[in-house]
């Protein structure tokens, strides 16, 4: 018989909580402040995008993909357009592929910026957040100049791009790259060698590479565990096979390594953008696309590397209607979030928010 009664405290984190990045709800069972078990409840933002897409024609769906990962709309656009192009075997002009690469790498920087800011904010470093938003704003300006929108871009079309880049845009992108390169050390000064930051992130949420693959992690959380898995390298799409870049990997598989991986991805993205700007070919930006898009009957799965991980589209066409027969998204946030209960078990409440931040979820994509 124990002297003291020790009940577990069940605490409901979310769906309205400052650190659950939207409407995530985590039901935590606590022993003191230690997490004994966790149940992740999602679906609060479910809008039925998959169902809805089976009732919208092929071009309209581009707009729906914006609303999935709303902080990284360009990569969702790219994944969808490439899947349909694969289904229809459309050849995309080289210039369009280059511009798509530039857009998705800019998007990756913007998304990682948002991630780093909110992640640092969750751990209590509030200044990094503002610094990151300062730079993210510049990327949004570039996107606004390209397509007129700042968040939901709809910046790609099946077969290419809606329009060519405005004159002088490429120069502005280069100028941004030069500026951003000087800003990365500012984040590092505040965090990388900060003792408190290290203590909060090192050896927290450790997962081995094999376990990470088995539980379905992709993207930076998987690379943080030392698995060099990157769709851009493994199954090149857009124009990634023409550029020279490295896939940063971590070794410990903790929050700190995931942070370092993403920080290095900033630099690799800049490398890709610079190569793409330097080698930007002339030519059209739209391939030979039929007036009425109606892919032949068949199904395909195509994946790209979104800033969160492997973003896959599984699309089935019946070959005779002008809507997809089945439209399925393999959302990286959803699959990465699945690892959360396992990662936080045995850690403290304060680590839960750090962990949610480190796997970088967007609830719009988790719930679709």
């Amino acid at each position: 018989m124990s002297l003291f009664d020790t009940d577990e405290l069940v605490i409901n984190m979310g769906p309205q909580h400052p650190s659950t990045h939207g409407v995530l709800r985590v039901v935590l069972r606590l022993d003191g402040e230690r997490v004994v078990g966790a149940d992740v409840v999602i679906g609060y933002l479910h809008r039925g995008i998959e169902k809805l897409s089976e009732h919208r024609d092929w071009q309209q769906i581009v707009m729906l993909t914006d609303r999935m990962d709303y902080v990284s709309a360009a990569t969702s656009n790219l994944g969808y357009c490439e899947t349909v192009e694969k289904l229809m075997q459309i050849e995309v002009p080289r210039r369009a592929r280059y511009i798509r690469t530039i857009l998705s790498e800019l998007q990756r920087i913007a998304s990682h910026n948002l991630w780093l800011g909110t992640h640092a904010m969750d751990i209590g470093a509030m200044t990094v957040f503002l610094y990151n938003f300062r730079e993210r704003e510049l990327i949004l300006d570039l996107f606004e100049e390209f397509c007129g929108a700042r968040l939901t871009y709809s910046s790609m079309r099946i077969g290419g791009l809606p329009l060519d880049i405005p004159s002088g845009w490429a120069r502005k992108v280069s100028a941004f790259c030069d500026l951003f390169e000087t800003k990365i050390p500012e984040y590092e000064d505040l965090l990388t060698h900060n003792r408190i930051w290290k203590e909060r992130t090192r050896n927290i949420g450790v997962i081995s590479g094999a376990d990470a693959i088995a539980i379905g992690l992709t993207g930076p959380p998987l690379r943080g565990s030392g698995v060099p898995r990157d769709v851009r390298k493994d199954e090149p799409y857009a124009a990634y096979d023409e550029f020279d870049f490295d896939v940063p990997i971590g070794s410990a598989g903790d929050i700190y390594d995931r942070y370092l991986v993403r920080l290095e991805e900033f630099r690799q993205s800049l490398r890709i953008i610079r190569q793409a700007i330097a080698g930007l070919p002339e030519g059209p930006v739209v391939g030979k696309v039929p007036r009425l898009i109606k892919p032949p009957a068949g199904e395909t799965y195509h994946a790209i590397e979104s800033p969160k991980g492997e973003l896959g589209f599984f699309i089935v066409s019946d070959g005779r209607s002008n809507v997809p027969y089945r439209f399925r998204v393999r959302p990286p946030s959803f699959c990465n979030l699945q690892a959360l209960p396992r990662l936080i078990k045995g850690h403290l409440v304060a680590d839960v928010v750090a962990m949610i931040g480190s796997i970088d979820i967007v609830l719009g994509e988790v719930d679709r």
Partner: protein
Amino acid sequence: MGVNPAPPAGPPDPPPPADLSVPGFISPLQSALPDAVTQVSYWVGDWTMIVATNRLLDVMRHLRTAQEASFDACCDVTATDWPPRAERFDVSYALFSTRHRHRVRVKVRVADSQAVPSVTSVWPSANWLEREVFDMFGIPFDGHPDLRRILMPDEWQGHPQRKDYPLEGPGEMLLENPMDWLRLRYEP
């Protein structure tokens, strides 16, 4: 317009062209587990294996462990509804090997309310993905550790991704009034 064509009765699943060599992991699988794979098809670069439902777990374990296959990542589990067909659902698994960097799609065909063996014992990542298929299509998974709805509310009735489920929702009960929810919850 006017004439509604009959709904399609299934994907074409075309056989691979004769001049294309089949990936190296398929024939060892066929010899290790004869008559488990009922069909191999190929379309725009994707290889698909259609597998008998009762042999699914054997096939998956083989694909996970065999050297030449070593599909260590289960990227996606999803389903497609083909109502005219007797076995109306295609449950498809997108597998990827981080060692060989190749992909394959494995499909099983099941009838309404027929259970599919869960692959969570092979890949833990299938857990939520199978829950989503259960939620959206109502396909039960045998041996799943935690088969609950995931995206829709627990008291939801019907399975939204089925083709006979209307886009607007369940129809007469639009669930705008909170009392409708209570009715759903307490009067099954």
